[in-house]
């Protein structure tokens, strides 16, 4: 039985994990080898599985600017005309630092998975640019994508449907090696076995089929497959949400270990705010195709400024509530997310927002930088209970408080659509620009 007894993973003394980078016949790309040089040493038990730390100065390996993905909606009948577009992703900009992790959270349908798939170029974007390692990969042809696949890999949510049931684990994990011709045919099997060992599976099980494994083990197979080519960027699309609680922690720790060892940058797409907080030093919250707030972990979770982030955080059930009893006080959001085919005008969250006013329907709030590493897209951005009465963005956008254009005012130059952070930002308290120097 494959699921009998412990397989030893998760034990801090587990010494199999770190042997990967130094394995024989390993065709590591040279630059990856450099970055993992010092990680070849064994992970100290005390520092193992530590949450990753933000490195503000790390260079961006991936930069996404004003990314858009519209899926056409066709009419029924013989002539299938396009009658509309699902605006799955609509103007998303962010940077992913090399070796760092960015979390994308939001509810289903907010475009977080589509963003992940755009970055892996499983879709061709409708607009915007994706720059990976200095190269624009937005329009790369199918042929040109092949080398790119070695650099950007993906872990899928559902370990039951993302593994071909008719292929053995050996074939699944070995396929990238064969396709990219990185090792001779007779070296594929030993390499597969090493990979299986890294992800905590029994290497002897390479000839088994996916159905013989439990959910957690299948997800490990998916991770092994993603690691096969030693990518620089891993898009993890809900990597643990299909797993049991005790297994989730194993997989999260495994992902953290491989990130540390190989310096892989993670785009961590998940709806579980706690998991994202644990994994990512930087988090972006998406709603209906747009980023509504992006900040470092501490700011986003302790002092969120967007009403949606605040509602989202207050909705998470908390184990600590057991000590008090009853339900936690929460911000109640009514209804469902509106259709992305015909999103609300102005701010997309306004239909469910407790703060919404006239301006919200007229003018779309820019993603305004309000702190050193903190951007928020809301006319009434502020900490919970301290939202301003008047829109902070009015003067910046050159409109009056109800959102009608104000001929007397000139719109100021905003830092809204740029990925990454600027050195100056709009101070919400003093309503002026501030900078890291002042």
């Amino acid at each position, binding site marked *: 039985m494959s699921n009998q007894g412990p397989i030893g993973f998760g034990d801090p003394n587990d010494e199999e994990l770190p042997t990967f980078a130094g394995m024989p016949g390993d065709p590591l790309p040279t630059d990856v080898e450099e970055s993992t040089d010092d990680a070849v040493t064994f992970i100290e038990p005390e520092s193992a599985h530590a949450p990753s730390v933000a490195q503000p100065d790390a260079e961006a390996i991936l930069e996404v600017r004003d990314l858009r993905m519209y899926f056409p909606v066709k009419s029924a009948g013989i002539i299938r005309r396009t009658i509309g577009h699902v605006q799955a992703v609509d103007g998303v900009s962010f940077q992913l630092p090399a070796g760092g992790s960015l979390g994308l959270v939001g509810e289903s349908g907010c475009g977080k998975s589509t963003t992940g798939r755009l970055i892996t170029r499983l879709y061709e974007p409708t607009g915007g640019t994706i720059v990976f390692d200095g190269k624009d990969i937005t329009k790369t042809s199918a042929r040109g994508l092949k080398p790119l696949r070695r650099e950007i890999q993906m872990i899928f949510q559902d370990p039951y449907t993302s593994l071909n049931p008719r292929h053995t684990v050996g074939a699944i994990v070995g396929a990238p090696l064969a396709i990219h011709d990185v090792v001779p045919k007779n070296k594929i099997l030993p390499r597969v076995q090493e990979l299986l060992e890294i992800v905590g599976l029994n290497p002897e099980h390479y000839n088994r089929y996916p159905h013989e494994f439990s959910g957690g083990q299948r997800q490990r197979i998916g991770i092994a497959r993603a690691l096969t080519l030693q990518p620089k960027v891993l898009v993890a699309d809900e990597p643990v949400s299909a797993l049991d609680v005790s297994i989730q922690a*194993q997989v999260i720790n495994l992902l953290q270990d491989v990130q540390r060892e190989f310096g892989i940058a993670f785009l961590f797409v998940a709806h579980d705010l706690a998991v994202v907080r644990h994994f990512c030093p930087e988090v972006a919250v998406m709603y209906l195709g747009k980023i509504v707030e992006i900040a470092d972990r501490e700011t986003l979770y302790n002092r969120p400024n967007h009403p949606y982030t605040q509602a989202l955080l207050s909705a998470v059930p908390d184990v600590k509530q057991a000590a008090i009893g009853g339900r936690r006080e929460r911000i109640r959001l009514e209804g469902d997310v509106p259709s992305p085919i015909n999103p609300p005008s102005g701010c997309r969250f306004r239909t469910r927002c407790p703060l919404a006013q006239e301006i919200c329907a007229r003018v779309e709030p820019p993603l305004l930088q309000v702190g050193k590493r903190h951007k928020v897209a809301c006319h009434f951005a502020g900490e919970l209970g301290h939202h301003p009465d008047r829109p902070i963005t009015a003067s910046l956008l050159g409109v009056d408080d109800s959102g009608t254009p104000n001929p007397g005012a000139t719109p100021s130059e905003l830092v809204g659509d740029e990925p990454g952070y600027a050195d100056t930002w709009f101070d919400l308290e003093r309503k002026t620009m501030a900078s890291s120097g002042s």
Partner: protein
Amino acid sequence: MSSFLSVRDLKVHFPTVDGVVKATDGLSFDLEKGSTLGIVGESGSGKSVSSSAILGLHRRTSAIVSGEILLDGVDLLKVSDEEMRRRRGKDVSMIFQDPLSAMHPYYTVGNQIGEAYRVHHDVSKKVAKARAVEMLDRVGIPQPDRRVDDYPHQFSGGMRQRAMIAMGLINNPSLLIADEPTTALDVTVQAQILDLLQDLQREFESAVIIITHDLGVVAEMADDVLVMYAGRAVEYGTTKEILTRPEMPYTWGLLSSIPEVGGDPNAALIPIPGNPPSLLSPPPGCMFHPRCTFQHLVEGDKCETELPDLVPGSRSETHLKRCHIRDSYLVYEQEVLPQIAPDLVEER
């Protein structure tokens, strides 16, 4: 006077060619009207199998169910199939985890909800539909008179789950079993559904069993918690006791392996090593011992050879635990808590 629902020594065994799978092995719990029991555990721990037994959903030819399930004094395991069918959906009803696969794609939502009503009430389709509209409205679906004619795929995930709840509650059951009711949902929708369940429970005075793996949901919803592992209860008591002063290493493992949104950001995530055991050949002694990291606290090889009883822990008569470790709550406070929630230690 016994409780409203009293389960005694429930066993669900599946004979297979490889041997007997003891999916549930000697489970006992009580539940009063108007209160909520949370059953937590990993997949395969017997949570769903046990609750299916309460509904009489196990086929006699493939499962051996024994023990007692007393609902309002009647043993559900002794009643005829005919009688069980009369009760199922009326006295006891269930909300399933995945509403898309639990609903028939070819029938309208209203048709399916109305059917649940017509099975137990001799009414026309029209009356049943009106009742379905009423229930859809009650669970907060906008424009219920229009949406009642929609097919399940036209509903969003949260709406489908609401429709499932409407179906489960249409006959005002006195016992509602919710099997992972919010697992497939987003957090804000989850909050709405949990609010709804709680409101409806208050309104109908139902007893609710909520099966979940999310300890946060349990903390906010349940009065009592039953932690299951490999077909057996390993810890049972009030929610407050179990989640703030757990005495069983498996519960510690569950608490330490989930990150908390409001917890200490530096808290370590300590997974439970290994995988759940095979129920065909469960480990001897304590079922959890191959994954337990606290065995050294017990003298000799007691953990490997002797199955601990579910007995009151050292602190309270109502807090039952299945563990050999003596004064295990001290171990939790001194060894486990500082690692998983350093901020809580200071508070105490």
